[in-house]
């Protein structure tokens, strides 16, 4: 483990209900890395992402995320440095895209203007007044990417990174992930389609373990 290590998992086991997601999983993520996370349907990629986001605790083993030990109250302090974009949008359907983004900016302690700038940066300046439940999947995804620009996280977790996005938006995902890594952060991109990912290295979740894909 080096000073540049952002995430470590040591023999981490994770069980949700009656399903074993991980068994003695090992993982190290360094600063500046862009990681692809692969695996078939139902293999636990999303759950692993939520574990890395400190939202679920490991059932056994140890792990650290941004210096906080998983399963302890230290994780509360590091959460504002993590952005997770799940496969379902983390937006309030009844609020407009602008209201959603400003809500995030205010709670993250950023100026509301930064929300408008971020929306413009993802190409949604003209759609700020549109309700989330009236917007397309691609627009919702772009709104969530605006969240990454506002928070400037050290750990970016993107589930189904390229699902349902047009070519322009796919480029946007990669640009934003690169911004995070070049600022000394780490980005994890989940995808089914290995060939569409431009990443430093890829990991695969199979049979409760995380393996390096060459």
């Amino acid at each position: 483990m080096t000073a540049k290590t952002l995430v470590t998992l040591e023999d981490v086991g994770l069980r949700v209900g009656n399903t074993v997601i991980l068994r003695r999983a090992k993982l190290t993520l360094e600063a500046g890395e862009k990681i692809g996370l692969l695996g078939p349907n139902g293999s636990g990629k999303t759950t692993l992402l939520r574990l890395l986001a400190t939202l679920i605790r490991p059932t056994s083993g140890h792990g650290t995320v941004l210096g906080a030990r998983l399963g302890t109250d230290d994780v509360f302090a590091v959460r504002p440095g993590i952005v997770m974009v799940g496969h379902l949008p983390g937006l309030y359907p009844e609020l407009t895209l602008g209201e959603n983004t400003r809500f995030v900016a205010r709670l993250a302690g950023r100026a509301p203007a930064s929300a408008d700038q971020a929306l413009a940066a993802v190409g949604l300046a003209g759609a700020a007044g549109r309700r989330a439940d009236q917007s397309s999947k691609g627009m919702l995804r772009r709104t969530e990417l605006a969240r990454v620009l506002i928070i400037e996280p050290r750990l970016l977790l993107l589930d189904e990174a390229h699902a349902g996005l047009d070519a322009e938006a796919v480029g946007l995902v990669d640009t934003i992930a690169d911004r995070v890594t070049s600022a000394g952060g780490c980005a994890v991109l989940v995808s089914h389609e290995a060939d569409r990912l431009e990443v430093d290295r890829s990991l695969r979740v199979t049979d409760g373990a995380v393996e390096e894909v060459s």
Partner: protein
Amino acid sequence: MKFLRTRWLEVTALLVVGAAVVRGVTVAADVTQGDVQRIMYVHVPAAWLAFLAFGVTVVGSVAWLRSGKPHWDRLAASSAEIGVVFTGLAIVAGMIWARPVWGQFWTWEPRLVTTALLFFIYLGYLALRRAVIDPVERARRSAIMGIVAFIQIPIVYQSVNWWRSLHQTSSRNSIDAPLRVTLWLAVLAFTFAYAVMLRRRLELSLLEAALELRQLEGSQAVAGAAVVAPSLEKAGHHG
């Protein structure tokens, strides 16, 4: 002798319950109410057990939140189940008692009203337990609900008490000494019965947990194992 050593609680409980039954049936009946009054020996101890059982539930809930050890959650759940049964018994016995004495099944006596609410509060607690599948999540949510409910009970009781005092005066009679001894014996008997039931229920829930674990290990339920490559031939052809 081994039987006595491992089952001393059951044997003692049987003796005390037996003594209480004999005493409860043979002691002189109440002068004004007659034999009907004997149902007090069921009603009062059952109500006491309701409070004892839910007190144990809250102890288990707090201890689980502090330590996270599964046996505390099992204690809370087991005690609540038994508590609900005795609360129901207390209410039904109270109603059977009330009918000949006051001419109606229900009186708005504060303790009776509180006991009835207690019954529903803990039915809710058990319904909550049933609704959550993950064991840890279930333990945590129900521990908090158990504590919330317990804190509210004295307030519920006090509010009904005040409400009653505004509307009519309390009619509590003192009871004779022989009757009081019988009542204490009945309370003791019920408490022993509760202890036996709690022990058996705990043994049972330990077995349940072991079974759950064995099924888990046996099925090798690793995420992804349930999803395999699709094979359309298996769907067969129609037409």
